[in-house]
């Protein structure tokens, strides 16, 4: 063992009880920090994965990010214009065949092309505004969880069923229709059609369950009188985290706005980020409090050992040697506390992860979602070591700077 460490250990041994209390402080701090991080990260991961699962990873629509350049700008170099009727935009992704072919060649993941329209559904005297989503069933299934949400029939029942639709349960309730019934659907100014209900779904999202109708892509195109048109491409990736990159590339490739799930949920993710910042602040605060304990005990030891410090200096120890001794004491306490705290944190996390409870609504038994992430252990122990190091360094520096002559004089 190095001399520095050996002297540090003798100091700690001489103050064993206080030292153990300090170590215990660090242990608790690290342990609870890890358990808290595991719980927060766990619930966040759980939440995000539910979120990501329920939505397209990348959605390309027929919008452009920049407002379209108006002919007036080009013709007259106008800086601003008022009261001018802008050029009518025929909505839809231009040249959809080429766009889809390009995506297919790139193959970022499962791709589903759709035509999304607003329409009005009527049955009896009831009328409701709806979103009509024209899809290719097998493609839509590949990019979404719609299969899991079906309560009657299947999305693939649309295939070969002519003018048929899969609608939300709530919409069916509102209209007062059931499986097998038919209702009238009008899109834009086109002719109304009778549509037969071949499937029902419930996602749990009210707006969707009340206002979404799936039809075949061809049906949507016929309803709107826009053959071959699509205005919505959804992509599902094997790795959801690649969505930003894929969206950026798709946008550059096609020229249309491509939104990753992260962008679509920016404010939500920001809120989670803030939650994390709050969490780490609390963790840091806990460890700073633990650091006070270490600061305290190392300060006591430097005072107690003032004579030893002076004599070591007279023997030829440098200030940095003296600093090293007390820094080592702080680091030892922080390090031991970090190791014990990691064990405690693991135990707490395990315990929390095994708490079983029944949600009132759901029938299934759930566990608290926890995450075991090495990073949490590294961060918590690292912070503990850092605060302990600082807590040891401050008194160490003071002790090392002192003039040995004053102490030797005072002692004789």
């Amino acid at each position, binding site marked *: 063992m190095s001399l520095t460490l050996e002297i540090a250990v003798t100091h700690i041994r001489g103050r064993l009880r206080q030292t153990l209390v300090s170590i215990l402080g660090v242990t608790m701090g690290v342990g609870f920090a890890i358990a808290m991080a595991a719980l927060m990260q766990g619930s966040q991961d759980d939440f995000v994965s539910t979120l990501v699962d329920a939505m397209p990873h990348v959605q390309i629509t027929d919008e452009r990010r920049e407002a379209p350049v108006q002919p007036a700008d080009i013709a007259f170099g106008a800086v601003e214009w008022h009261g001018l009727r802008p050029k009518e935009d025929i909505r839809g992704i231009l040249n959809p065949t080429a766009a889809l072919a390009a995506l297919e060649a790139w193959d970022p993941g499962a791709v589903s092309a759709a035509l999304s329209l607003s329409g009005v559904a009527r049955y009896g005297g009831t009328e409701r505004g709806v979103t009509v989503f024209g899809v290719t069933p097998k493609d839509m299934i590949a990019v979404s969880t719609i299969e899991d949400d079906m309560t009657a029939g299947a999305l693939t029942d649309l295939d070969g069923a002519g003018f048929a639709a899969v609608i939300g349960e709530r919409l069916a309730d509102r209209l007062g229709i059931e499986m097998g019934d038919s209702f009238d659907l009008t899109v834009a100014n086109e002719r109304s059609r009778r549509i037969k209900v071949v499937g029902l779904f419930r996602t749990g999202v009210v707006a969707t369950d009340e206002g979404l109708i799936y039809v075949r892509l061809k049906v949507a195109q016929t309803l709107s009188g826009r053959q071959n048109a699509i205005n919505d491409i959804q992509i599902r990736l094997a790795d959801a985290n690649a969505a930003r990159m894929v969206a950026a590339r798709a946008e550059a490739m096609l020229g249309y706005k491509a939104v990753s799930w992260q962008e679509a949920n920016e404010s939500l993710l920001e809120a989670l980020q803030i939650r994390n910042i709050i969490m780490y602040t609390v963790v840091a605060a806990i460890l700073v409090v633990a650091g006070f304990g270490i600061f305290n005990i190392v300060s006591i030891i430097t005072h107690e050992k003032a004579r030893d410090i002076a004599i070591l200096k*007279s023997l030829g*120890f440098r200030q940095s040697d003296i600093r090293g001794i007390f820094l080592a004491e702080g680091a030892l306490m922080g390090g031991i506390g970090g190791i014990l705290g990691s064990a405690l944190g693991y135990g707490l996390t395990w315990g929390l992860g095994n708490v079983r409870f029944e949600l009132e609504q759901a029938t299934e038994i759930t566990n608290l979602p926890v995450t075991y992430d090495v990073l949490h252990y590294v961060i918590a122990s690292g912070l503990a070591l850092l605060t302990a190091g600082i807590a040891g360094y401050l008194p160490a520096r003071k002790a090392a700077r002192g003039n040995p002559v004053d102490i*030797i004089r005072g*002692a004789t």
Partner: protein
Amino acid sequence: MAVLLETEKVTRVLPGTVPVTLVEDIDLTIGDGEFVAITGPSGSGKSSLLYLLGLLDMPTEGEVRFRGKPTHDLSEEERAAIRLSGIGFIFQFHFLLAEFSALENVMIPMRRLGRIDRREMEARAADILERLGLRDHLRKRPDQLSGGQRQRVAVARALANDPPLILADEPTGSLDSHSSEQVFEILRGIVEEDGKSVVAVTHDLDMAARMGRGIHLVDGRIVSDGPAVAHLSPQLS
């Protein structure tokens, strides 16, 4: 006789609202193999001078040279390095580390210097302690030793890195006459057999008279410096 330590017009003033002059205008040359007594009334600056000679303290004016090398512009680390291998300190109180055995205490300066391996250090430390009559006490901690034995361990620790200069501040001041005599003989042996220089502050005039050279301080100034017997003059009593 090679010059070991030299001071030139060394003055040490403690700053403050009322500055205190500890020592003033000290011109001193100490060669190898000298046995020097520093005497003087209490508060005359003997300890202060010793700290300056040992580079533990810095003069406010003047210069201390160790082996001809000026020390005033050395860094704290360089001065520590000179102390480590060039100077051994002995104080009135032993100042041993309470948690370490006699042997371990003696090994501390060796380990800091790190010139020889652990086994050699142990053998050498044991050797020194045996020479000082502590053969049976190597593994004892300071609280298991008598005052005289502790002080001998402190002497052994000062000798650990074989420094050419030993500075002692009333090394026998807290010992009974028997132990004092023992320690004195050891110091004499260090000078006469090992050729080291020993500069010792003492209140014991008989002891001072038996050393080779006497420096007498009054009010921070050297009033006499010469062969030991010379300053056994009435002014002392």
